[in-house]
């Protein structure tokens, strides 16, 4: 294959739309082409986001156990190395820093500083608005510190922030339906506040999005 043509195979490769020979040629090219590696990182995330458009029934429980059983069988002679918490969290912080530099396809990255453990975690915030009602989804949101809560806000253009719901985070995924309607031009924000919530935000927002 002409190397001139290989550059424009990135989108097809990201969609797994190359045949086996083309894919091998592209992978060989990729090793030496920074431009294609960077483009593939971007287009690959867009392509894999298509998986989320599919309505997904729950897989049978046997699939999970089949995977874990097979995985254990493959490594039965391997002794896991101990990982200290601090090393693990440093690794997470490095990932967060890399991700913050790269423009990511699926929303934005926010670093949440947990005041107790001094760990930084990367969270992805997304917002969907339907018929003037908003839902916020956050992945990997650290649990709010003791005595604190996350509070969502709807700030109409030129108006004051309206409390729009409390949430505590802590799971892999947090979904919050805002209790306030979102007019055109409004800003959605989230802050950390004292437990029970407050009537006006008192800290710098972790996240803002203007409609």
């Amino acid at each position: 294959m002409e190397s001139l043509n290989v550059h424009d195979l990135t989108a097809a490769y990201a969609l797994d739309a190359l045949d086996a020979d083309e894919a091998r040629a592209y992978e060989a090219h990729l090793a030496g082409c920074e431009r294609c590696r960077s483009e593939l990182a971007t287009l690959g995330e867009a392509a894999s986001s298509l998986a989320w458009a599919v309505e997904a029934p729950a897989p049978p429980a046997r699939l999970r156990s089949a995977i874990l059983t097979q995985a254990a069988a493959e490594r039965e002679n391997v002794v896991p190395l101990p990982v200290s918490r601090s090393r693990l969290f440093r690794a997470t912080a490095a990932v967060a820093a890399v991700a913050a530099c790269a423009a990511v396809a699926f929303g934005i990255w926010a670093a949440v500083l947990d005041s107790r453990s001094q760990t930084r975690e990367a969270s992805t915030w997304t917002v969907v608005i339907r018929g003037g009602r908003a839902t916020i989804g956050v992945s990997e949101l650290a649990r709010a510190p003791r005595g604190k809560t996350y509070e969502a806000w709807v700030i109409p253009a030129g108006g004051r922030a309206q409390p729009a719901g409390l949430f505590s985070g802590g799971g892999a995924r947090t979904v919050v339906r805002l209790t306030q309607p979102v007019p055109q031009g409004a800003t959605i924000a989230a802050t950390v506040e004292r437990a029970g919530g407050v009537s006006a935000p008192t800290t710098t927002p972790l996240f803002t999005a203007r409609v």
Partner: protein
Amino acid sequence: MSRPLAHLSDEALVALAARSDSSALAELYDRYGRIAYGLALRILRDETLAEDAVQDGFLAVWRTAARFMPERGKASAWILTLVHRRAVDVVRREERRRAESLERIPEPGGGSVDEDAWLRLQRGRVQDALRQLPDPQREAIELAYYGGFSQSELAERLGQPLGTIKSRMFSGLARLRELLGEPGLEMSWNP
């Protein structure tokens, strides 16, 4: 179900899987197994083949976790890519009847309320973005990603030059990325 690693990022879980921690693989499966299965089922239209593709994909995660490079994209995208690639390999090998367009598969739930809400949220976002693509771009992307057609097969099937198919896929994915990055919203983050 207890999920002791639920607080870790996907990337931290992949790093643990690379050290043979099978509970990290279990947590990754609990986060992405359902969406991976839905994707494989969409492509393969056969529950047994879909289970095989998901199993092969997650075992590839397990075997190659040490080679995952976070600077090349998110761990979730990497996992779904591994599953997608296997499903496409099988659909081409089996010459199964392939998807014509995005068709609805009944959703018998089965997840937690949170998981269902999360999946609905993400599905809404991506479907909204797909709908905003020009028809020829959406058609090329859907047939490639959900149908497993190669670019050459698409050119033949759609009666278009290969260059046209390539540029539709490129423009469509680039636009999709923009749409998903800012779904009608301006986003910012203040440290």
